[in-house]
């Protein structure tokens, strides 16, 4: 142990000058012998006597290492090691003086398929590799787990749900085959994948807007696992699915991978500072590069944003070459409506629209002028409240912003009733937020007036929420006239009548303040009596036409990689700063992967991304298969062969079984990147089927169970626990796919807040993979069980154990309600006999009959307490919460 502390200090801080090769000052610190021999100034150490050791004098005086004195803890480590006799282990010579990985790093070498050791008792290659190591240490596998424990483990591992009582009789191999084809397999493994890729359904940040179509990526992932999609194809589709199959909206949804992370809509739409806007774009690209490389390659490429990677062979230039590969895309909603649907839709809509527009025109001739006069009079007369956040503003040509109570509609129009000068009004940019609808360079046909406003019409691709308008008439200040002075933003209500969402009078008006409205009766009174009948007819017709238009299926959109109108060149940015661009770079992948050329075509977005996708999924790429098999292994055993699943670089863990990892990676590719093959290998191994019981002897040798002398028992993760409670109570709603259900209520007042919603019923009793995943939201119940906020990738979840967690599982209303439902189910299935009830409850929750002692405890408890409380206790037991 003392040596273990001293070695890193020597290797990292001393050996670059004092190795057997470098020998500065004649001193070599790579072996104990050489240290005792010393250099020109004499022996480096005196074993057992730090004060007489030259090495200690040099490091305590701060002379060595030159200019970079050791930290106190490091000096202490050396002193203690020398004091205790400078023991040296079997590693006779220190070799690596460079504390970083080079191009010969293990994970960058092609996995060679090693020979499988011939081991007695090994039923498949996994066992052969594992048993070989165990036996070296005098250890062996634990006996096979009991059939009940094994089935329970299998069900959780494959589907994330507990077995039903009647499923315990199924033979193991039959269960493996059935479960890998069960729809719950895809749901369970997709949830794991969504952690790795930081999948969330809101932007995060200040506005934290919801992403109503992000769930389509989630469904894509579930379907990919479920359908047995080869992994190389899965990789390619997430980078370039929209290009591989342009007509297939599902594959466009696959690129949701690139943009399912957090995103700063405020900097994108609102920030006026050009530098900060550039920073945002760079952050977007960084998110894509970092997530792509961490997910598929297990490398921390993001470290090279500011400088060459300090530990892995990733030059800064490579980082910026990768950003170039993604410069054609950004975050947003992508229209994936098929050509046919678009045509059909247009065929249906066009005549309706035309007819409605004709009716509107006629109605307008009757009522627009009187209505506008009435409204203007009211607006002018309105006593707008004064107070914080309220003021009357003068519009200006350069920038105007107006927030208002949210309105959901698919059509808006800006009614402009006054502008500067005598020319028609103009808008050089307008944004409706948070919908993100943008208008550029619009000009009216003539000046707008109170009686005849000029209308800027806007159609949003789907009904969207708007609570803010930002616009400018003339940012360049080139035009002398036409800047908007007075306007209203309007939207049609269900009846087709235009309602005012905002006007120039209410910039920053509190949401509670009602805008003046003109009533229908007032309009009626203001028009000639002869026109009133026709007006009613037209209003009814418009309403009817609107209803028919609304019933036409909406355009299909998805939150996925959105194409940028133009691709800007990429530069290396000095220290990552957008204000300090250096050399321009062409698109490229990582130069450290010597098996493949790193150059990507310097062409269109399609050429770039397709090439990158092919590079990632190339069988010669040494990392892609290794990373995936390690992730799958990690999920089955609770720790990976490399225990840092998204980092196979220098700062990551070293593989516990390098040959096994390589054998699995190489065989996985040979077997067509088939996940089912991989699952079967692992599930068929004796390693997976071992008992999880503690073994003191083995624990003393390998406390962390890296060698797998048993199966480590594991606490369910947050979502599995919720799903399992629902499953045993009989309430789990197995509906698959589609929009997410909400465990939070969305409050919007300019920005979204996601507050706890204690809602109940089948709609929220679906599997947790289908729950709406807001960033920065409260997730009561799930939070305390280590369910992460999806703002950062979570390749492995923390497993903590806290009193707050205990309080949650004990007292949360969700658990209590489910305990009551469980008690009801038990009563229905077991009848009134208490003994039978206890038996049934144990079978449902724990998958086994109660023991004698447990029957006694139950009988005693139930004398005074309800069956629901007994069920609640069972749901809180270690046995339920831990998978054996």
């Amino acid at each position, binding site marked *: 142990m003392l040596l273990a502390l001293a070695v*890193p200090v020597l290797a990292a801080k001393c050996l670059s000058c004092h190795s057997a090769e470098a020998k500065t000052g004649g001193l070599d610190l790579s072996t104990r012998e050489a240290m005792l021999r010393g250099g020109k100034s004499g022996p480096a150490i005196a074993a057992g006597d730090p004060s007489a050791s030259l090495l200690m004098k040099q490091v305590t005086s701060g002379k060595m290492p030159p200019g970079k004195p050791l930290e106190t803890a490091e000096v202490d480590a050396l002193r203690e090691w020398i004091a205790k006799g400078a023991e040296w282990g079997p590693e006779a010579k220190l070799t690596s003086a460079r504390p970083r990985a080079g191009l010969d790093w293990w994970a960058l070498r092609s996995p060679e398929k090693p020979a499988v050791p011939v081991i007695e008792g090994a039923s498949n290659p996994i066992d052969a590799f594992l048993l070989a190591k165990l036996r070296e240490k005098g250890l062996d596998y634990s006996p096979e787990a009991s059939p009940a424990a094994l089935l329970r483990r299998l069900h959780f591992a494959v589907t994330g749900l507990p077995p039903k009582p009647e499923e315990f009789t199924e033979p193991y191999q039959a269960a493996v085959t059935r479960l890998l084809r069960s729809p719950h397999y895809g749901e369970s493994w997709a949830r794991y994948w969504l952690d790795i890729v930081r999948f969330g359904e809101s932007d995060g940040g200040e506005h934290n807007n919801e992403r109503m179509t992000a769930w389509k990526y989630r469904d894509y992932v579930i379907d990919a696992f479920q359908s047995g999609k080869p992994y190389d194809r899965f990789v390619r589709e997430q980078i370039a699915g929209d290009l591989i199959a342009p007509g297939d909206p599902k594959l466009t949804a696959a690129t949701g991978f690139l943009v399912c992370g957090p995103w700063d809509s405020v*900097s994108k739409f609102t920030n006026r500072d050009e530098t900060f806007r550039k920073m945002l774009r760079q952050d977007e690209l960084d998110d894509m590069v970092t997530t792509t490389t961490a997910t598929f390659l297990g490398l921390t490429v993001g470290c090279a944003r500011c400088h060459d990677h300090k530990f892995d062979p990733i030059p800064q230039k490579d980082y910026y070459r990768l950003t170039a590969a993604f410069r054609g895309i950004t975050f947003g909603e992508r229209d994936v409506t098929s050509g046919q649907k678009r045509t059909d839709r247009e065929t249906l809509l066009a005549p309706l629209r035309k007819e409605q527009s004709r009716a509107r025109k006629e109605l307008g001739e009757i009522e627009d002028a009187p209505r506008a006069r009435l409204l203007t009079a009211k607006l002018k007369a309105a006593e707008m409240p004064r107070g*914080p956040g309220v003021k009357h503003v003068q519009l200006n040509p350069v920038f105007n912003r107006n927030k208002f109570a949210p309105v959901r509609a698919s059509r808006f129009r800006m009614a402009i009733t006054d502008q500067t000068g005598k020319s028609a009004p103009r808008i050089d940019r307008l944004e409706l937020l948070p919908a993100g609808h943008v208008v550029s360079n619009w000009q009216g046909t003539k000046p707008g007036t109170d009686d005849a406003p000029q209308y800027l019409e806007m159609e949003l691709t789907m009904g969207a929420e708007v609570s803010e308008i930002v616009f400018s008439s003339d940012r360049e200040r080139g035009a002398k006239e036409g800047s908007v002075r007075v306007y209203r933003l309007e939207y049609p209500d269900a009846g087709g009548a235009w309602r005012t969402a905002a006007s120039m009078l209410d910039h920053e008006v509190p949401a509670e303040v009602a805008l003046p409205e003109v009533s229908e009766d007032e309009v009626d009174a203001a028009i000639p009596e002869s026109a009133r009948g026709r007006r009613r007819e037209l209003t009814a017709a418009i309403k009817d036409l609107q209803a028919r238009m609304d019933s036409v299926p909406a355009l299909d959109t998805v939150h996925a990689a959105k194409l940028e109108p133009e691709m800007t060149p990429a530069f290396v940015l000095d220290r990552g700063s957008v204000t300090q661009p250096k050399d321009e770079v062409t698109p490229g992948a990582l130069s450290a992967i010597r098996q493949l050329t790193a150059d990507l075509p310097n062409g269109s977005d399609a050429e770039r991304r397709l090439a990158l996708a092919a590079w990632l999924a190339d069988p010669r790429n040494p990392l892609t298969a290794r990373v995936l098999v390690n992730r799958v292994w990690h999920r089955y055993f609770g720790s990976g062969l490399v225990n840092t699943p998204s980092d196979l670089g220098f700062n990551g*863990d070293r593989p516990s079984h390098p040959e096994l990892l390589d054998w699995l990676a190489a065989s996985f590719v040979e077997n067509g990147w088939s996940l089912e093959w991989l699952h079967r290998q692992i599930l068929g191994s004796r390693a997976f089927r071992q008992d999880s019981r503690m073994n003191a002897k083995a624990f003393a040798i390998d406390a*962390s169970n890296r060698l797998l002398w048993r199966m480590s028992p594991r606490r369910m993760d947050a979502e599995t626990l919720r799903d399992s409670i629902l499953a045993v109570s009989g309430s789990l709603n197995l509906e698959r796919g589609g929009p997410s259900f909400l465990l939070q209520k969305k409050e919007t007042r300019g920005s979204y807040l996601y507050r706890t919603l204690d809602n109940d019923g089948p709609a929220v009793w679906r599997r947790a993979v289908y729950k709406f995943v807001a960033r920065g939201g409260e997730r009561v119940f799930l939070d305390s069980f280590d369910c992460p906020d999806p703002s950062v990738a979570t390749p492995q979840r923390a497993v*903590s154990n806290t009193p707050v967690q205990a309080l949650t599982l004990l007292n949360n209303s969700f658990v209590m309600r489910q305990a009551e439902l469980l008690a009801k189910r038990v009563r229905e299935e077991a009848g009134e006999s208490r003994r039978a009830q206890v038996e049934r409850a144990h079978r449902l929750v724990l998958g086994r009959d109660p023991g004698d002692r447990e029957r006694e405890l139950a009988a005693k408890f139930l004398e005074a307490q309800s069956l629901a*409380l007994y069920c609640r206790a069972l749901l809180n037991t270690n046995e339920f919460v831990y998978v054996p």
Partner: protein
Amino acid sequence: MYPDRSVSRREWLWRTGGGLGGIALAAMEAQGKTHFPAKAKRALCIFMPGGVSHMDTFEYKPELARHHGKETKGANTITPFFGKRGALMKSPWTFRPHGQSGKWVSEILPHLAGCVDDMTFVHSMTARSNTHGPALFQMSTGSIFQGFPSIGSWISYGLGSENENLPAFVSLPDSRGMPPGGPVHWGNGFLPAAHQGVIFSGEKEPVADLAPPAGVSGGAQEATLRLLGELNRGHLRMTGGEDALDARIKAYELAARMQLSAPEATSISGESDKTREEYGFGDAEMRPYAFNCLLARRLLERGVRCVHLYNGAHFGAPRVNWDAHENIEINHGKLARVFDQPTAALLRDMKRRGMLDDTVVMCTTEFGRLPITQGLGEGGRDHNPEGFTSWLAGAGLKRGFSFGATDELGYKAAVDPVTIYDFHATILHLMGLDHTRLSYYHNGLQRRLTDVHGHVIQELLA
């Protein structure tokens, strides 16, 4: 708090520090030891979301008054965040010197003006973003990106709890609403959930899930816990003794104790009328924040390691935080009235009880505001990440001391600029933690509160 024992030692070392620092830290976690002797045992972190104007509160800018009404030109032009560029605007409030230290304070904060001799001001703060989202995340977590562990989580991770019956880290959000971004500001990020801030919200039911669900009596709850203990111990015997399972049994025992001790901590029935009056309980607008201030003191007193206390909530209209785009006088006037008296009462109360001798108090916002108005002829101020004020009080600090300054107009940090990393490093230092050694392995890096930056501001230390 209770690291899962199934975590391998190797992984533990990797996670906690990899090198020697990590080994030292692993040992420290087990023993609750600091890196070096601490000045402060606990921390109170007061956050004021929205962006507090420094030149209208604690940083007196007489020169700004002289240039009142002038527009900024040429190289000195000030670019606002999104509003129109306006003219320079003096503070609408009068400043006067206070205390032994003669600190000039705006009349907007009359009560805190009486505490200046116990406060330590940093007038040269800078933030990395001019947008609320990233700047707020940096304020709470050091990172401009969402999802990193908050400062309270790092402190909990570094030092653990002093009182096993209460959480190590508690967050007290503003009763007017969550801070923008919500619970991420006290989130544990990639640290284990044990280091998550636990919300205590308001007077009525401060802790979620603390009490048994409706209809479950105290006796039934006790019987349930007894039954559960029996079942779990039986199971533990069957598994051959598993540390993690044993730890979970203990967690329920602690939970039972927390059910008893938390209500005591949150009940203010024992506080005198005089105390309540001093905190501002008599004023309906002030009361929720006053309660949180008093609760903060009670929790810290009982060994909670870190409390996040918020004054200011989410965005939107009407304004419930310090984001004074429209009118500084109305916005800051209203918010300061609620903030001033309870905060000052809290500082005085802690001082009387000797708590300022072993507690560090920090108060910050995500950025300052511009010396110009937002739009000509207007009364609001836009965002300013180039210079703002934070303050500290308590253990190990020079009292009645001001450090750094913005330029004469209050635009940019001009004397001794300080980053949020430096500010965070200083807080950790006061708590006996070396910010370069308090680290946790995540996604390829030994992550720190201060990323790869930060220097302890030595000049602030007593």
